[in-house]
């Protein structure tokens, strides 16, 4: 297990390192002068020069990369050009929106998709299967932002059940915050749930065709018992894989969804930062997202090992 973990972590660190070089070099190609953006159209040239100096934009490239990496290692992501505050603070402020959003969506999609997938697999070929998989098929095809628009108009504007967007912050209590995240989470979760339900179903069907299911049935175990106690755990392996991949999708999905619902999350932050050429923020957030994907992949691998003793042994 330790060997396995060490190897996974080593690969993760390598991935991060390569990713950091890619991100940094991409960001350095970006055109646009951050100082000019901050001071606006009619800014005086002396003011620009002064600001550039202050922002450390005159230091050579390699040195800037080294500083950046060294800083990140100790949690210092530098200072935002536009907000003039530490990037780590910006990230922390935004993460308290994005993280709950991603977690709620992930939970929501899992809680919906896995039972539906199992249900459909257990009723293969019958009405319940056809209806749920037909719905899932459509769910996969719906762009989440379009779905979000429809949700806003139905639930926020017509029915006025939930806010149309914006985020009141957590200071006013848990409920207003959660309420503001309901529609975005649904918009994010449902298309993912559709995919997950399909994967769960086919994984279950695959497992249900295995010999050991027949062995269990030959032991006299009823169909339902076999479904939950024998099939489910084995079917979890492909489902976990998709869950891991979906996490990356969710993170990306937040960029669009946060824009639709104008939620002040990491996705909005990075989108705005790109258009405002706030390079250091973009770099920091992208690295953070990449790191979380890497971390989730490691967690998925650990979960594999927990589910499957064969992998545990190899580990």
């Amino acid at each position, binding site marked *: 297990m330790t060997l396995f973990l060490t190897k996974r972590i080593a690969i993760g660190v390598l991935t991060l390192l390569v990713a950091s070089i890619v991100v940094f070099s991409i960001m350095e190609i970006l*055109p646009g002068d951050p100082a000019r953006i901050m001071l606006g159209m009619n800014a005086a040239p002396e*003011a620009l020069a002064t600001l550039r100096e202050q922002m450390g934009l005159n230091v050579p490239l390699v040195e800037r990369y080294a500083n950046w990496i060294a800083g990140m290692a100790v949690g210092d992501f530098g200072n935002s050009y536009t907000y003039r505050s530490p990037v780590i603070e910006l990230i922390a402020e935004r993460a308290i929106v994005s993280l709950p959003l991603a977690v709620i969506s992930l939970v929501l999609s899992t809680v919906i998709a896995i039972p539906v997938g199992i249900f459909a697999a257990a009723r293969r070929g019958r009405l319940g299967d056809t209806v749920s998989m037909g719905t899932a098929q459509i769910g996969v095809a719906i762009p989440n932002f379009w779905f979000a628009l429809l949700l806003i108009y139905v639930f926020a504007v017509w029915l006025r059940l939930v806010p149309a*967007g914006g*985020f009141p*912050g957590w200071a006013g209590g848990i409920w207003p915050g959660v309420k503001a995240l309901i529609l975005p989470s649904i918009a994010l979760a449902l298309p993912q749930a559709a995919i997950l339900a399909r994967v769960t179903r086919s994984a279950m069907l695959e497992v249900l065709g295995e010999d050991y299911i027949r062995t269990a049935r030959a032991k006299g175990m009823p169909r339902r018992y076999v479904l939950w106690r024998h099939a489910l755990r084995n079917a979890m392996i492909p489902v976990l894989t998709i869950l891991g991949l979906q996490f990356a999708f969710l993170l990306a999905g937040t960029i669009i969804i946060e824009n639709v619902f104008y939620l002040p999350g990491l996705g909005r932050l990075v989108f705005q930062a790109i258009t405002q050429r706030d390079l250091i923020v973009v770099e920091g957030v992208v690295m953070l997202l990449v790191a979380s994907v890497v971390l989730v992949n490691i967690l998925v691998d650990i979960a594999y090992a927990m589910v499957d003793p064969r992998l545990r042994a190899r580990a």
Partner: protein
Amino acid sequence: MKIIVPVLTAAAIALASGTAFAQRADVVIGVVLEPPHLDPTAGAAAAIDEIVYANLFEGLTKIGPTGEVLPALAESWEVSEDGLTYTFKLHEGVKFHDGAEFSSADVKFSLDRARAKDSTNAQKGLFAAIESVEATDPTTVTVKLSRPQGSFLYNMGWGDAVIVSEASAAGNMETPVGTGPFKFDNWAKGSSVVLVKNPDYWGEPAALERAEFRIVPDAAAAIPALLSGNVHAFPNMPAGDALSQIQSDPRFEVVIGSTEGETLLSINNGREPFDKLEVRQAIAHALNREEIIAGNGSGLGTPIGSHFSPANAAYIDLTDTYPYDPEKAKQLLADAGFADGISATLKLPPPPYAREGGQVIASQLRQVGIELEIIPVEWADWLSQVFTEKDYDFTVISHTEPNDIDIYSRPDYYFDYHNDEFNAVIAELDATSDEEKRNELYGQAQRILAEDVPVGFLFQLPKIGVWDAKLEGMWENAPIQSTDLTEVRWAE
């Protein structure tokens, strides 16, 4: 377990406060852009002034709802005969939000800081004429100018000229400290800035207890936010085509005012063949302003024929100088030797008036033989490519600074336009402080531009103010970038 207690208490208070007040004293104002920081003396972003101007920070003077100059921290002033010495009499008993006393020393500090060599003030030009600032006594400030400047009092009313305290100036970006009727409470980045009433305000206290400026980036988000009651007012609503629906809804007050935003089809006069007057005239004849306004994203706007706001007293209607006439445009192009047409690029920054209006313009110019390749650019790229490097043929942009007709006389400006006759008018204007004379000079300047069409004059950007019908005291026009909440209150 203990941690949960304050949270619950906070929640209880929040619930209670939602119902306890009989008279509403809080308001949520929607703003399109999030300010990069909150110090109006260190950035050009209009988003800063929209929140802090007049509410949090005050200057010596203040620009009123119709563009007039009003007294603010200076209760009165005297101007010397030669127009070179301004003596300001300051209010007494004014305190900064951190409790510090306001005095003439703060005025001297603020103005000297703004015009210093290492200043990062984005509008240093406002202070260019100042020779010296003297704090004669605690309530008197004497400013000496190196040359007469007609617009000096107006300039002192800009957000870039607000008075800050030496003690707190460095922290103004994050936690601004001013003298206004509201003080800073909280800034949730990406989401909102909250101001609360300043109980120690020196003047008429504000009616509102709390004002939240919520960042609502575009129409897609603004409309549902307004309709669902999450946001009470948009001083500048990105309403787009949904405006008609809001107008017909009795819950809302819609006021279409004017801004200082002259929207132009900017032309690079330094590039062939746009240095030719005939070509520019042809372009002017090819533009159908009504259609452009209809397709500009909101369907609103006042056509203009030169670079001046119709709301201004000195405005002259010159829209008929080159009326829409595609045949004539083709003829002019043929005469200029471009019978086969011209190919050029049109760089469009992100706002809808540019991105959408630009498509209409491209379609109109195509009909007279000018084929435009549309290149959408982000603000950052627009600033560096178009504005700084002058690497463009055409662009669509709204110039929102007030009274900025002088930009056509700036030698390095991105129009690359040079006209000695015009420059002479501007120079004279700068040295004139007599109102009537100034208006006449403004008229001359407008006419020169209208004839010479250095750019395509399109329309004045509308200020679409939308707010809850029960909300009183919002400004209808926007002579300056601000959301003055001092007079705002809920009816009943």
